[in-house]
């Protein structure tokens, strides 16, 4: 038992940086994210008997954090009819936390995504989960996760006006011409 407990703590610690990055990416706010992480640690600690050592601790913790977030949002929604309040932009309060202007733009764009698209693209595109694992964490079908990720990518592209070829001046002009030339 003593041994198992030490392993549990060590594994939990190892996941914490990524768990916190997930919380911050989801909420867009360090203070709320850290409260969320704290609640998650306490929940996980209390439920550690339920965790099977050797299985995916990271996925387990992410699932707990996500459930905590949505139960908070639901409570909040009942109280103030503003379930989006948690996501309000507060970039001005933490301008230095995100190095470049580019990063700040990205963060702002991420905040504009619907919650379910945001979590899907973070889990798959940044936290390192497979589509299958992300589906399990979000409690939805594999196809649903895939389409959420695709929609999130599309929306981010639109918001950040990244549309490939037009970012490369001369290519935007020459690409259609060359492709026509090759087609004929």
């Amino acid at each position, binding site marked *: 038992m003593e041994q198992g*407990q030490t392993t549990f703590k060590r594994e939990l610690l190892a996941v914490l940086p*990524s768990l916190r*990055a997930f919380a911050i990416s989801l909420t867009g706010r360090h203070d709320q994210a850290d409260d969320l992480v704290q609640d998650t640690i306490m929940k996980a600690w209390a439920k550690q008997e339920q965790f099977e050592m050797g299985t995916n601790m990271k996925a387990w913790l992410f699932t707990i954090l996500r459930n905590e977030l949505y139960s908070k949002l639901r409570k909040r929604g009942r109280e103030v009819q503003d379930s989006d309040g948690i996501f309000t932009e507060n970039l001005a309060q933490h301008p230095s936390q995100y*190095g470049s202007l580019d990063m700040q733009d990205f963060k702002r764009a991420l905040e504009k995504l619907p919650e379910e698209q945001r979590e899907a693209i973070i889990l798959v*595109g940044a936290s390192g989960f497979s589509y299958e694992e992300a589906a399990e964490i979000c409690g939805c079908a594999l196809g649903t996760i895939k389409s959420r990720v695709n929609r999130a990518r599309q929306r981010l592209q639109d918001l950040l006006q990244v549309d490939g070829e037009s970012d490369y001046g001369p*290519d935007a002009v020459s690409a259609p011409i060359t492709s026509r030339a090759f087609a004929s």
Partner: protein
Amino acid sequence: MAEVKSVNKKPAGRLSPAKPALARSDNPNTQIALKLRSFYQSVQDEALPQRFLDLLEKLDAAEGSAQRAE
């Protein structure tokens, strides 16, 4: 003949985040993927707040003393 076929073969539609290196650098999906990862990474690289370490210490200590009491 076989060679031509493999050249024409398009990469399977969706960008796999597991293999970003294979994607073209001017692919907008890749730009989004890179930005997302670098944003996430920058947060992940922040020092872990001391409150979490303290909390784990406390939980650990509480559990230890509870077990000794049993």
